């Protein structure tokens, strides 16, 4: 116990706020971030039952803008940005020619030819290098620009069913850009609008990573602390609590949202990770298309499955072997004790012929074998 925190770690503009509120700080993807304030279970259940606020300023913001932005993004990412009206966002991936995943990301259409990409903290440098590399070979390169604005922007996520009790107080009135709505609660899932905070434009999206209703707010780095404090003040009516990355991870694991480095990496495709829904086939060529199409037709050697432990066991954790009939067939990539269900849950890769809800597998933990069963995703459903 007692994590050694390197002086090399990056800090978000909310670092002082985390210290003031007693957040327990750990290293995550090169950043010094709060893992918890009270306890992971407490914060997790707070998000499921009321609301929690998370610092997600470590995530990256990249602008893609210009008359050829649609064509560039459609040639570079798996999903189809032509599906996006102004003020709408989509989940997508960037793949390599061999189908491995560079990163998974959210793409928001802020204006007709202006897109905001939200990428993983640990992948900002790799993503920007990849996007610039693709831009250099893009036929209409002079018609589109790629700009990393990660240092200029910060972000928070407010998640949980009671967010609707106070989000309109935090951002009064109608949006002034993006989706045209009378109030933040007028946004539907995946919509994004622009409001004003202390004289600056902020982006408010009805998205999240918890499986609950919620909003993600991207604001200039200098304005995020006042927004965080104000949210905690007005959020009192929704029992809003600050939450750390520990609860963020257990919440997303229960609903089987992928985390780069676990369910996805440069040797794993969106098809293998069960994210084929976000790969569009009727939009022309894009990086990785040939390999992804072969995989969709059946040429995969591993498939992501979700499971829950059936007997009392230690929590499954990333790296533990998955066994079927006593033989190692795969590896756990995410796992925890589910705070909502109080049972061990996880995800892992197995050969496709062994994948399917209801089918057994077991997890080896410190040399002992514990029974589990595969379940349909998401592992946790409300109600």
């Amino acid at each position, binding site marked *: *116990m007692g994590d050694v925190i390197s002086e090399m770690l990056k800090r978000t503009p909310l670092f002082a706020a985390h210290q003031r509120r007693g957040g327990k700080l750990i290293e995550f993807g090169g950043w010094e971030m709060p893992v918890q304030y009270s306890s*992971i279970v*407490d914060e997790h259940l707070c998000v499921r039952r009321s609301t929690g606020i998370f610092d997600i300023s470590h995530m990256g913001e990249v602008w893609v803008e210009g008359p050829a932005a649609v064509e560039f993004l459609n040639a570079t990412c798996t999903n189809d940005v032509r599906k996006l009206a102004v003020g709408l966002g989509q989940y997508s991936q960037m793949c390599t020619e061999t189908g491995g995943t560079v990163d998974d990301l959210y793409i928001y259409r802020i204006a007709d030819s202006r897109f905001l990409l939200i990428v993983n903290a640990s992948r900002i440098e790799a993503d920007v290098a990849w996007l610039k590399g693709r831009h250099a070979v893009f036929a209409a390169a002079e018609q589109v620009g790629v700009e990393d604005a990660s240092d200029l922007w910060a972000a928070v996520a407010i998640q949980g069913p009671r967010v609707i009790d106070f989000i309109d107080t935090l951002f009064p009135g109608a949006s002034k850009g993006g989706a045209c709505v009378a109030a933040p609660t007028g946004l539907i899932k995946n919509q994004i609008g622009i409001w004003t905070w202390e004289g600056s434009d902020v982006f408010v999206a009805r998205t999240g990573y918890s499986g609950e209703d919620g909003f993600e707010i991207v604001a200039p780095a200098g304005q995020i602390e006042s927004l965080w404090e104000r949210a905690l003040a007005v959020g009192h009516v929704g029992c809003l609590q600050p939450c750390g990355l520990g609860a963020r991870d257990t919440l997303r694991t229960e609903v089987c949202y992928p985390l780069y480095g676990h369910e996805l990496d440069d040797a794993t495709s969106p098809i293998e990770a069960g994210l084929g829904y976000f790969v569009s086939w009727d939009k022309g060529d894009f990086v990785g298309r040939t390999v992804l199409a072969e995989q969709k037709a059946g040429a995969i050697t591993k498939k992501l499955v979700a499971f829950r432990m059936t007997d009392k066991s230690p929590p499954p954790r990333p790296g533990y072997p998955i066994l079927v009939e006593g033989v190692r067939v795969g590896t756990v990539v995410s796992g925890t004790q589910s705070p909502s269900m109080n049972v061990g849950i996880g995800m892992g890769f197995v050969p496709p012929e062994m994948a399917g809800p209801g089918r057994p597998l077991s997890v080896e933990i410190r040399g002992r074998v514990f029974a589990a069963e595969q379940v349909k995703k998401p592992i946790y459903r409300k109600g």
Partner: protein
Amino acid sequence: MSSQVPADLKYAKSHEWVRINGDTATVGITDHAQHELTDVVFVELPAVGRVVKAGEACAVVESVKTASDIYSPVSGTITAVNAAVVDDPSQVNSAPYGNGWFYQLKLSQPTEATSLLTPADYSTQIGA
């Protein structure tokens, strides 16, 4: 938040406590340790009869976030384990010096206890 460090116990640097009564020792983890772990969800204890050496990993405590080894502060033979804490691991959080104890052993090297931390030493270590 200040952690409790009872005056009648001895401590290991790795955050275990020992209560010595004649040639029997009871072992658990400290209030500071349970604060650091939070949300204890699983406890794995050694088999009765196992012989352990001081400093040997002989139990595991798991929180939602992580699994941590528990090192025996003293050498001896395990004589009893706390089945109740296996059934309800949250007792490690609610009563680390009481119902949340881990195991008892019969000391094989009683003099080892003199090299353990005093409550004052341990308080200094954790900044309490």
